[in-house]
């Protein structure tokens, strides 16, 4: 039983004339909000590594090895479940096709593990085929720690909690498991265009 607050609209319907590019229930922001469920880790490059393990030949890269992998510049719109969208963000990162290899991963799942203990789960199909990166650059600069640096996952076609900050390890699984926010009732898949915010949406 709520009473409407005269003249209150929230800012979420402000899509800045970009209706077709903004998923339902989102507003467009120019700044880059910092969301975090814990302190920002500051892992120095010489203590940083990135691993793939599980149902895959395990592999670990040091920062230098990781940075010597072929990288791509990616321009993407990103959509946070807290209702902001940011258009035309420019990233630099290593494609997950490069990190996970060319083998058929149909029916498999990826659990991303991060510094600070955060996890999120994704279908392997959604991180292959040029859809996901481990990004180390943003806007032509090194990715700042508050936005996930040294490196974060970038999966722009899903809500941004799937683009885990401070990612260090991808675990390939033959079954699905909920990650951190998914455990608390956020949607297991998180497609912003179908407004899959919570389980059951």
């Amino acid at each position: 039983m709520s009473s409407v607050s005269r003249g209150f609209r929230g800012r979420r319907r402000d899509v800045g004339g970009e209706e077709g590019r903004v998923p339902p229930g989102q507003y467009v922001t120019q700044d880059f909000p910092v969301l975090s469920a814990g302190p920002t880790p500051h892992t120095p490059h010489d203590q940083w590594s990135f691993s793939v393990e599980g149902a895959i030949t395990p592999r670990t890269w040091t920062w230098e090895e990781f940075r010597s992998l072929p990288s791509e510049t990616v321009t993407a719109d990103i959509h946070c479940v807290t209702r902001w969208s940011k258009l035309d963000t420019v990233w630099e990162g290593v494609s997950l096709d490069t990190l996970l290899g060319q083998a058929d991963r149909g029916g498999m799942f990826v659990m991303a593990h991060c510094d600070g203990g955060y996890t999120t789960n994704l279908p392997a199909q959604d991180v292959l085929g040029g859809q996901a990166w481990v990004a180390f650059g943003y806007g032509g600069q090194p990715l700042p720690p508050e936005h996930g640096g040294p490196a974060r996952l970038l999966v722009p076609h899903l809500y941004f909690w799937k683009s885990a900050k401070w990612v260090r390890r991808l675990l390939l699984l033959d079954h699905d498991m909920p990650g951190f926010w998914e455990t608390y009732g956020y949607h297991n898949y998180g497609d912003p265009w179908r407004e899959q915010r919570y389980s059951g949406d």
Partner: protein
Amino acid sequence: MDALDGNAIAGLLHNVFSSEMTTATGTCATCGSASVVGELMVYLQAPGTVVRCPVCGNIMMVFVRRKGMTCVDLTGLAHMAA
């Protein structure tokens, strides 16, 4: 993002526990430290509210608002006493 403290969620906590909780003492299930709830680390700028132990940093409580209900996880809390 800087953490706030338990004072910032006084209303949420009161609503969940039906009592003023910022002066209660919560014991961390990970490290066993007892802290006044008003002094716990609180992260609000996230899909939910995450409350951490100021001593060891581990999660003590998580609150997620979903379709008018609040999902409450207290598994990181060993004990809470008013």
